[in-house]
């Protein structure tokens, strides 16, 4: 089991971001390195890449406010 975490280097400071959209629903099979969701900090949008391959469970839905290091999903 691997946590899907908002990378610490996704942006530079302690601001909060928001999940704009997930590219998969819970239960979907995902592959390592592919884009899982889009996260936005103010005007800058970044792609969050999958840390592993497996079945995704979404913990934080779209529109959720997130911080760096936060767990937003799981891959089994």
């Amino acid at each position, binding site marked *: 089991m691997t946590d899907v975490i908002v990378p610490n280097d996704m942006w530079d400071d302690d601001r909060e971001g928001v999940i704009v959209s997930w590219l998969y629903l819970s239960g*979907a099979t995902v592959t390592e390195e592919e884009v899982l969701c889009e996260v936005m900090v103010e005007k800058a949008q970044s792609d969050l890449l999958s840390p592993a391959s497996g079945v995704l469970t979404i913990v934080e839905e*779209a529109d959720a406010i997130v911080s760096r290091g936060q767990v937003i999903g799981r891959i089994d």
Partner: protein
Amino acid sequence: MSSERILTVARAGREAVMWEMKNDPSVFMLGEDVFTFGGVFGTADGLGEMFGAERILDTPISETGFIGIATGAAMAGMRPIVELAFIDFIGVCFNAIANLAAKHQYLSNGQVKIPMVLMLGAGGGYNNGAQHSQYLLSTLAHMPGMVIVAPSNAYDAKGLMHSAIRSDDFVVYVGQKKVAGIGLLGSPIKTSMAAVPDEPYTIPFGEARVVQEGTDITFVGVSWTVHQCIQAAERLQKQYGLSVEIIDPRTIVPLDREAIFKSVSKTGRLLVADEDYQDFGFTGEVIAGVVERDPTILKSPPIRVANPNVNIPFSRPMEQRVLPTADRIFEATVALLNL
């Protein structure tokens, strides 16, 4: 690669561009702010890194010039994709679009082809003012010589982009800014996101899609207004048990008049919603197409919900008032049917 992805319109369109550029060296993109910036509305995000500055070509602010240049490159057998961030800017390059790109194929009697795509960002609703919020698709649709597509969802966006790039004709690809699903304009519209296959696929031009079937009235929308129709239909169903059929033409030129006529023959009622200025435009065209074929299929007058030909005001209450929102579509239907 997984096959259960749900993409935004912008991402899906970009995927098609990426695939075509990887597989066909004659495809290249040009426009303002495409290379480093990735396009003002995310149309070229990441492409610069992937393909380099020569194939993702930043141009100066010279729309007439670079649309003319793209036409020449197309005549020479390349497949340029021109990125024109705001459809409002067709004002400065209308000649290049309408007299040059849209005419060479016909005037040469087919000796030259113009396999060019013109991507345009259209529409508003986010307080960007009268010169950066127009829809204007009808202004182009009025002129012969260009295929015009306006996808409302990610699945159509990718398929139509593949079709547009592969086509030997001049194709105008109208992206609506809110439908694109980029973060700059809030959360993506849920109904614009769709499951998109990994592999490339095409959607034929001139083929409409039935978004949902119904029996009481036909809604025809374009791009953003398809989603307004969906929202209004949901409310009408819940509140009045009304059964609404929604048609998304997907291609505006050539228009799938058959699909629209078939639907109205079934329901007997027609409402057309368009973000563009109402007069002399899409809504009138759809209605005329039905009425001139057989006016007796209509049980009540057709309705148009569009911008009532005013310049788009900046202030929120005024801007929202002139847009063909779900509320306006809902109220127009209630009034028509005396619900």
